[in-house]
């Protein structure tokens, strides 16, 4: 909640700042490893820093996914499924059907990849539905009383998919897979030929390279930015709605209703974006598997 000492923009800034751990060098030349106290310090840390909150939540949710599904997998048999088992099988079949619908090749990686993407992103997106102040406040309390930090310096973003690092991280892995399978299936020459000799034939080679190169690069970029953009915007709206709570009873009630409405609508986005990321990954990998000649 925005305290009196915080301005609205300060509140928003605070919510959009990751908890960054990295090597910070003072102007005097002294360097030390610590958490960034503000956005400027985080920026100054450069590339060699990690967003602890993003990694924590994404890994925790990933482990949650694996634990839950592994439990079902261990109990899986041909008998009558019940409860959780049933749900897991339903999800698995849904993903399997999606993969079978758009992926024609034979690759044992694709379906588990799609399942991981779908459930993991779904879980990470779902963190968006937790009221925006709960976990950051909790983290501030832990930081203040447990770790002796200044509570204003404890930044905590709980939705990993609102961090471009997370979405680009996943898209990067997908991109590597696209290139790997393109080369594996078509050979280095085939892959290069696809980039160089389409769509204008060999005399339009520079134009081909430009067009195909852009279309290749745009795959991971669009994957990452679509997910990030949707979730970031959703998070932003939640934060803006949360600002209303400091405006008295009327605005607080209004904000509550707005938050409820947006949360209900956001469920759609949460699921949809996870599904789109999964489907596009499948489609891109299908394209990587296909010969165009």
């Amino acid at each position, binding site marked *: 909640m925005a305290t009196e000492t915080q301005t609205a923009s300060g509140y928003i800034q605070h919510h959009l700042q990751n908890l960054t751990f990295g090597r910070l060098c003072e102007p005097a030349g002294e360097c030390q490893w610590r958490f960034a106290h503000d956005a400027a310090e985080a920026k100054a840390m450069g590339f060699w820093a990690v967003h602890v909150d993003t990694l924590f939540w994404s890994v925790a949710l990933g482990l949650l996914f694996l634990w839950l599904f592994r439990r079902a997998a261990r109990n899986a048999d041909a008998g009558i499924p019940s409860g959780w088992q049933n749900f897991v099988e339903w999800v698995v*079949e849904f993903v399997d059907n999606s993969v079978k619908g758009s992926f024609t090749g034979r690759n044992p990686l694709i379906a588990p990849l799609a399942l991981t993407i779908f459930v993991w992103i779904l879980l990470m997106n779902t963190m968006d539905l937790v009221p925006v102040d709960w976990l950051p406040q909790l983290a501030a309390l832990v930081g203040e009383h447990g770790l002796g930090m200044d509570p204003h310096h404890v930044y905590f973003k709980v939705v*990993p998919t609102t961090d471009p690092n*997370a979405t680009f991280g996943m898209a990067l892995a997908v991109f590597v897979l696209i290139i790997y399978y393109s080369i594996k299936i078509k050979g280095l020459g085939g892959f290069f030929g696809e980039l160089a000799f389409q769509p204008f034939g060999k005399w339009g080679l520079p134009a081909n390279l430009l067009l195909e190169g852009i279309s290749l690069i745009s795959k991971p970029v669009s994957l990452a930015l679509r997910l990030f953009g949707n979730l970031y915007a959703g998070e932003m709206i939640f934060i803006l709605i949360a600002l209303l709570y400091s405006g008295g009873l009327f605005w607080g009630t209004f904000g509550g209703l707005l938050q409820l409405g947006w949360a209900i609508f956001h469920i759609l986005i949460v699921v949809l974006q996870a599904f789109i990321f999964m489907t596009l990954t499948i489609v891109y990998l299908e394209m990587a598997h296909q010969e165009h000649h």
Partner: protein
Amino acid sequence: MNINLTLFGQTIAFIVFVWFCMKYVWPPIMNALNERKQKIADGLAAAERGVHEQELAQKRAAEQLAEAKQQAQEIIAQAQKRANEIVDEAKENARAEGERILNAARAEIDQAVNQAREQLRDEVVQLAVAGASRVLKREIDAKANADLLEDLVAQL
């Protein structure tokens, strides 16, 4: 919102999760699903086979029933025929027996009549002799008149 090492951290986490999922999550669930699919397919096939067999059994039962009915009919017809035969035979036997008894009775009657006639004849002879002797008031030599008497007896 800086791009930093988190990017690679996320990528590594992603790869590890996918690897784990591919190794320990997906195959057992998929196996179970396929196994169940097979089981259900087998069950359905067995059910179909059962229905088919039941149809066959019903057909066979109907056939056997019809056959049994026919056999029963035949047996009844035969029994009726045999009963008629037995009745006829009994009738014939009874008739023969009756005739035999009748004949025997007749023979007995004839015999009795003959006997009676014989006796009567003897008595008549004696009466005649007695009568004659009274008439003659003398003793007739039976021996002397035996021939006469024999003639008389033969005439009777």
